[in-house]
């Protein structure tokens, strides 16, 4: 056998080995310590945060539906206040779930059915003043900006009206039908979301790789997407960043309920928990901070943790609700924008760089 022939045999063997090895990741292979941690992080995130949060959310939606039925049966101020209170409980849980939008949940666009903001008031009023039968299947067929939590908020809160005026609007039975149907639809949608996550558990927990398809990479993208949403839309648009600088109070998420800052704080809480992995008293609470410490990026970890605290402080410094604060405490709202912007840079640029994450959803080749 010539050198060439020997070489060709070696070559073919190596090629086959190189092709076969990547495809035999059946769980029997030797994992690195990093992968052990990654898998631990994903399990921790799913079992101690995603699963309980979505179950809690489904429970809150069921409660909201019950309170809504009570309100429908007994139209009075006390029941309206109870309904508002339950709505706030529900939206704040949702603001913690909002971060987790991947896999089948992302593909189904179900987040839009739960909370698409701002709502289209004209569409809602046209439906109420129309003649179609309003029930949960009618709501299911509507566009996402006419249903979900934001639509309920539109019906039960109004910055321009006092409580009795809002109550008075419900003398129109079709408005009540719309409200109860929204609540019923939300129960179904929240249960579907919970089921999707349950079905996705195994896939989520085993995406241990750090590459493009890795669960950690997807979590970083989720963190960045939510932070961009806060910076660009939830605060930036209210500041008037997209219209030449004229503040737009009514563009604040939760403007009618005056809960904007609480919602941003709930978002921040979930970002912090996802980053640190501090979900429960379980011993293996792995978050992104562990990876930074492992890669000797201790200073970056401290900067991120400090910046998260600065974000909390910048929220707390604002005395009024975001809608009014953007006029009366504009500098504090600008500071809120800047503080969250700095956190975004730390995660999108520094953290992603150190972890080699891909901040994009395309898989176009490199180099």
């Amino acid at each position, binding site marked *: 056998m*010539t050198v*060439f*022939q020997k*070489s*060709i045999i*070696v*070559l073919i063997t*190596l*090629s086959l080995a*190189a*092709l076969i*090895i*990547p495809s*035999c*990741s059946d769980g029997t*292979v*030797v*994992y*690195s*310590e*990093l*992968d052990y941690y*990654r898998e631990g992080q994903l399990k921790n995130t799913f079992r101690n945060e995603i699963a309980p949060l979505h179950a809690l959310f489904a429970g809150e939606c069921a409660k909201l539906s019950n309170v809504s039925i009570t309100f429908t049966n007994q139209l009075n101020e006390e029941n309206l206040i109870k309904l508002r209170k339950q709505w706030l409980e529900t939206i704040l849980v949702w603001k913690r779930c909002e971060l987790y939008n991947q896999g089948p949940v992302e593909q189904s666009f179900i987040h839009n059915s739960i909370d698409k903001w701002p709502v289209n008031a004209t569409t809602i009023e046209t439906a109420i003043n129309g003649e179609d039968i309003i029930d949960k299947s009618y709501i299911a067929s509507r566009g996402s900006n006419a249903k979900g939590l934001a639509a309920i908020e539109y019906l039960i809160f109004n910055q321009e009206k006092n409580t009795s005026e809002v109550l008075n609007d419900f003398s129109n039975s079709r408005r009540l039908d719309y409200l109860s149907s929204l609540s019923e639809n939300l129960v179904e949608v929240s249960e579907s979301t919970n089921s999707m996550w349950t079905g996705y558990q195994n896939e989520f927990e085993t995406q*241990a*790789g*750090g*590459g*493009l398809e*890795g669960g950690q990479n997807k979590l970083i993208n989720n963190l960045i997407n939510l932070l*961009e949403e806060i910076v*660009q839309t939830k605060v*930036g648009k209210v500041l008037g*960043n*997209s219209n*030449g*600088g004229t503040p737009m109070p009514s563009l604040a998420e939760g403007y009618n309920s005056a809960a904007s800052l609480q919602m941003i704080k709930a978002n921040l809480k979930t970002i912090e928990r996802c980053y640190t992995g501090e979900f429960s008293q379980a011993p293996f609470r792995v978050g992104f901070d562990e990876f930074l410490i492992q*890669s000797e*990026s201790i200073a*970056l970890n401290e900067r991120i943790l400090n910046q998260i605290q600065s974000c909390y402080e910048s929220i707390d410094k604002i005395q009024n609700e975001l809608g009014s604060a953007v006029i009366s405490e504009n500098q504090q709202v600008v500071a809120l924008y800047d503080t969250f*912007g700095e956190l*975004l*840079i*730390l995660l*999108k*640029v*520094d953290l*992603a*760089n*150190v*972890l*080699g*994450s*891909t901040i*994009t959803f*395309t*898989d*176009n*080749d*490199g*180099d």
Partner: protein
Amino acid sequence: MTGIKAYYQSLNSKVSLQPLIIFRIAFGLLMVASQIRFLLKGWVKELYLAPKFHFTYPGFSWITPLPEVWMYSLVVATILLALCVSLGLFYRISIILFFLSFTYLELIDKSFYLNHYYFVSLISFLLIFLPANGKFSLDTILFPHVRKTNVTKWLIEIIKWQICLTYIFAGIAKINYDWLILAQPLKIWLSARTDTPIVGSFFNEPWVAYLFSWTGMVYDLTIAFFLLKRKTRPYAFVFVIIFHLMTWTLFNIGMFPFIMIFSALIFFDEKDWKKIFFKQTNVEAINERKPIFLFKTKSLQYIMTGYFIIQIILPLRHHLYKGNLRWTEEGYRFAWHVMVVEKTGYCEFIVKDKDSQKNWTVHPSQYLTKVQEKQMSFQPDMIWQFAKYLESDFKEKGIADMSINVKNFVSLNGRKSQPLVDPNIDLTEIESEFQLSEIIVKEEELESVELN
């Protein structure tokens, strides 16, 4: 020197056409696979049709995407043309049209610049001038006069020279502090790939990153020489396969490894092929025929001399600019800086109407696709281009006189993020791509920047 002199003198000798034929068939088939993959991945829409704005190359702003149906038709055409090249059917016109259409596609937007696309354009350009359809082609049946069994040696050597230049400049690009002393960006990339079965468990070990870095540099700098030498060629080819399959397994670099593996086939001459398949060591006497080219030999020599002068100057042009190349990216493209940076960035643009003093904050995602936004965030020329685009967009909205500044942070190879483009400079005042040095915050001693 005797070896070089002998090599130089041998360039005008006649050799078998076989290596070129094998190269043509392999290259054509790879391009068929590559373009089908491009189509199936949905990249025609994502890369060409979805963006509202394209980052054009200097001097090529006239190259814009065609309407949807034509864009798809064009990519399909590249598949058919590549197939024709492989089959040797209407070879000359097919390779010319393939070169033009493929290069057109690559020139539409800087965001999609890839070294291997550039390599494909160069190889298809060179193939235009070579009689690669002289044997084992449908052209030899349809047009018997194109039949050939041999060719002047230098016509095969130019493909080898291009491959050598690619490897050597890629190797030179790796001789830097980050690559050799910090083992970056491989340290980052490997730790992200610890899920690779069996060997992945070692990827978080610093010594592995150093091993890969140094091996990669030595490989790039020397592999071409080992491929050139007959004695070492088979071993070198085995290394080529191992090396590129490994990069294919570990990194998201698409067709590049396969293009380089199949390109290395050009180094095997007829003697080698006969050894492999026919157990013969003696080569039959070559039956010389008159070569047929688009150009006369002398003219072609001038063209190729010019071509290779450009190919040597382009990768070296970055020395004309101040600052660290990997940070400034001035002279970075078309220079074989393959896989030497891990960069992430963030940009937001502040548009100020000088008359009304109104401010707008523009987030690039409002205009750009994810890929464009990502690529722009750490490349100064693209940041400037986007600012100019914003200027024209705001002018259309009625803002006559404005300033545009960018808030931009970039992290390179694990370093703490810092501004790349000076936030105090009004980008509307920069009129040409040749003034970009003025806007870049130069990090003269990149080594001193704190690591994250």
